[in-house]
C-alpha cells in the first residue's frame, strides 16, 4: 500500500488523468534467476494502438502485468498519464486486461463475468444489461449469457475475456493475445471491432499478439521485444521494410539474409564474390554485414532489376495465395514467393535453373554479427 497514500497526494498536484498514456521507465523484473523484463523504457501515446511483438518468453506478459499492477517492478517506474502508479493496486488503475489465460470467474455466468466491472462502478439494471448484451453481441456470443465459462469452447471463452475487459471503456486496454484462439474470419471481425472502439472512444491499446499481419494492419506503433528488451520500435512499414537487426528481419516474416562485406557505400560483396547494390549506404566500409531481401521482393528472371542472382530450384510448395520456391545459390538458400495469378507461376520444376533479381530499394542491410543471436 505504501505508495498509495503518497499517490493520492500526487494526483492532486498532477495534471488531470484524462490525458493518460502509458510510460515505462527503465523497468526491470526478474523471477528468481530469470530476468523477464530488462531495463525496459517505452512510451505509448494516448489513444494510440501499440503492438508488442516478440518470441515466446520474451517478457510481453510480464510487461503487461506490471502495467496492470499485478507485478511490482524490481526497478524503474511506470506512469499512467503523468501519474507514477508504482505500488498502486490494480483496482485503482483505470486499466483493463484481457488475460492470456482468460481468468474467467468459474462461479459466475457469462453475463455476470462481463457485468463484473460495471457492477463495481455501480451501474445497474437496464443500463447494465444493455451494455453487457451489446458487448456480448459484438463478440458474437448471443444467447450464451446464462452459461458458465466451462460450458464454452476455447474461442468462446476468449471472447468473453475480451468482452469483460472492453465493456468498461478503460483509458488503457491491455490485450494479451486476445484473438489467439479465434479463426481467421472471426479474428478479422474482432480486429475491426477493436479498431472501431479505439476510434470511437479513443482508448489506448497495448496489444500483445503473435499474428504479425494483425500487428501490421492494426498497430500505429510496433515494438519488437527480445529477451526482455525492445529490439526495435516504430511504425509497421519501417519495421518490415527497414529492420535494423537481423533478429527483427527474421522475426517479421521470412527474410533472406546474404552475408557479405561492405565494399563502398551502396555496394556489398557477397561471400560468392558477387556484388550487389543496396539503397541504404550508411554502413562503414569493410564491415561484415548481411543483405536482407524479402521473399516476395525476389522476382523470377526479369532483367528489369539492378541486382541478379543465379540458382537452382531446390523445393517447390503450394501456399494458397502463392507458390513458394526454395532456391539454392552460391550465397546460401533463398526463399521466394511467386503469385499464382502471374503467368506460369507454378511452372518451375525442382532442379531447374532459375534467375532471380531484386531492386536495391527492396534490400536492406543488417549487422551480420547479430545473425547468431536468433
Amino acid at each position, binding site marked *: 500500500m*505504501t505508495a*498509495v*497514500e503518497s499517490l493520492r497526494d500526487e494526483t492532486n498536484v498532477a495534471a488531470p488523468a484524462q490525458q493518460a498514456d502509458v510510460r515505462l521507465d527503465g523497468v526491470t523484473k526478474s523471477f528468481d534467476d530469470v530476468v523477464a523484463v530488462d531495463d525496459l523504457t517505452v512510451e505509448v501515446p494516448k489513444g494510440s494502438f501499440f503492438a508488442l511483438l516478440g518470441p515466446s518468453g520474451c517478457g510481453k506478459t510480464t510487461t503487461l502485468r506490471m502495467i496492470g499492477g499485478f507485478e511490482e517492478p524490481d526497478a524503474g517506474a511506470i506512469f499512467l498519464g503523468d501519474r507514477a502508479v508504482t505500488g498502486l493496486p490494480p483496482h485503482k488503475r483505470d486499466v483493463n486486461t484481457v488475460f492470456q489465460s482468460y481468468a474467467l470467474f468459474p462461479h459466475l455466468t457469462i453475463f455476470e463475468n462481463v457485468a463484473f466491472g460495471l457492477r463495481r462502478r455501480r451501474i445497474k439494471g437496464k443500463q447494465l444489461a444493455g451494455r453487457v448484451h451489446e458487448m456480448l453481441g459484438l463478440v458474437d456470443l448471443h444467447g450464451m449469457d446464462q452459461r458458465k465459462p466451462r460450458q464454452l469452447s476455447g474461442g468462446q471463452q476468449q471472447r468473453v475475456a475480451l468482452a469483460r475487459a472492453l465493456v468498461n471503456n478503460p483509458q488503457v486496454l491491455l490485450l494479451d493475445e486476445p484473438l489467439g484462439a479465434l479463426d481467421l474470419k472471426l479474428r478479422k471481425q474482432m480486429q475491426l471491432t477493436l479498431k472501431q472502439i479505439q476510434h470511437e472512444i479513443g482508448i489506448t491499446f497495448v496489444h500483445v499478439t503473435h499474428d504479425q499481419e494483425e500487428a501490421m494492419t492494426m498497430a500505429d506503433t510496433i515494438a519488437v521485444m527480445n529477451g526482455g528488451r525492445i529490439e526495435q520500435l516504430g511504425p509497421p512499414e519501417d519495421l518490415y521494410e527497414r529492420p535494423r537487426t537481423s533478429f527483427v528481419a527474421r522475426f517479421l516474416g521470412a527474410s533472406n539474409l546474404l552475408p557479405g562485406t561492405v565494399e563502398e557505400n551502396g555496394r556489398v560483396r557477397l561471400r560468392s564474390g558477387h556484388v550487389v547494390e543496396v539503397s541504404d549506404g550508411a554502413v562503414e566500409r569493410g564491415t561484415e554485414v548481411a543483405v536482407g531481401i524479402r521473399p516476395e521482393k525476389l522476382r523470377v528472371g526479369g532483367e528489369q532489376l539492378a541486382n541478379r542472382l543465379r540458382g537452382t530450384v531446390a523445393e517447390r510448395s503450394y501456399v494458397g495465395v502463392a507458390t513458394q520456391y526454395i532456391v539454392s545459390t552460391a550465397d546460401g538458400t533463398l526463399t521466394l514467393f511467386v503469385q499464382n495469378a502471374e503467368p506460369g507461376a507454378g511452372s518451375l520444376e525442382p532442379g531447374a535453373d532459375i534467375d532471380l533479381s531484386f531492386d536495391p530499394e527492396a534490400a536492406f542491410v543488417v549487422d551480420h554479427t547479430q545473425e547468431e543471436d536468433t
Partner: protein
Amino acid sequence: MSVAAQRLPVAHRRTGVWAFVKRHFLTAYAIGAFVYLLLPIAVVIAFSFNDPKGRFNYVWQGFTLDNWIHWNAVPGLQDAVVLSLEIALLSSLIATALGTLIALALVRYNFRGRGTTNLWIFLPMSTPEIVLGASLLALFLNLHFATGFATILIAHIMFNISFVVVTVKARLVGFDVHLEEAAMDLGADPWTTFRKVTLPLIAPGILAGGLLAFALSVDDFVITYFNSGSEVTFPLFVWGAARVGAPPQVNVIGTAIFVIALAAMAANILIQARRSKHAKGMA
C-alpha cells in the same frame, strides 16, 4: 536485485503508519488468532513447571523441573498416552483412507442413492456420543466381542469417517478434471491417475481430514469409555485422575506431544524445502 535495493527505500520513506497497519492487518490478526488458540496451551506448559505441594495443579506455587524429570512418575499415565497415540494414529489413517474414497465417489460419480448417502454421512456426527457409545457397546456384547484396543479403534474409525468425507469433499469440488483426463490420455490407468495426479492435488484436503480425525480421536472420552474394556486412554486417565487431583505430569505429557508434533512437522517441511532446492541446483 541491487537495482531493487536502490528504490526500496523510496517506497519505505513514503510508508505511513496507517499504511503499515493496513498492509499488516491480516498478519496481525492471524497472530492474534493463534495466540487465542494456543493461550491455554501456554498455561498448560507453564503449569507443567509448577511445583504444587498437593495433588491439585491449579495455583502457581513455584518453578521446578521435577515434573519433567519424573515425567512418568504417575503410574498408568505413560501407558495411557501411548495407547491414545496408537489409537489416534491408526484410526485417523484408516478413517482418512475410507473417507477419501467415499468423498471421491460422492463428488465424481452419479449413482443411485448418491443424495441419500450424502445425507447419511452427517448422521454419525449428529448422534449424541453417549447413546452412540452405549449402543456400540451393546453391539459388541451381543457379538461376544471382547472390548479393548480393537473395539476402541473400531469406534474411533466409525465416528472419524464422516469428518474426513466432508472435509475431502470440500477439496474435490472445483478440482480441474482436465488434469485427470490428461493423465489418462498419457496412459495412466485410473489408479495411477489417482496416485500421481488426483492425490497430490487434493493432498491438503486429505491432510486436513486426517488432522481432524486425529484430533477427534486423541481427545475423545465418552465413546471410548464405553468401549474401552479395561484399557485406559489419555483422556480417560485425566478424567479419572481429576477426582483426586491433576498431577503436573499430565501437563508435561500434553506439552511433550504438542512440541514433538510441531517439531516433526517443521523438520519435515525444512527437509522437503532442501530437497527441492537441491533438485533446482542440479537443473
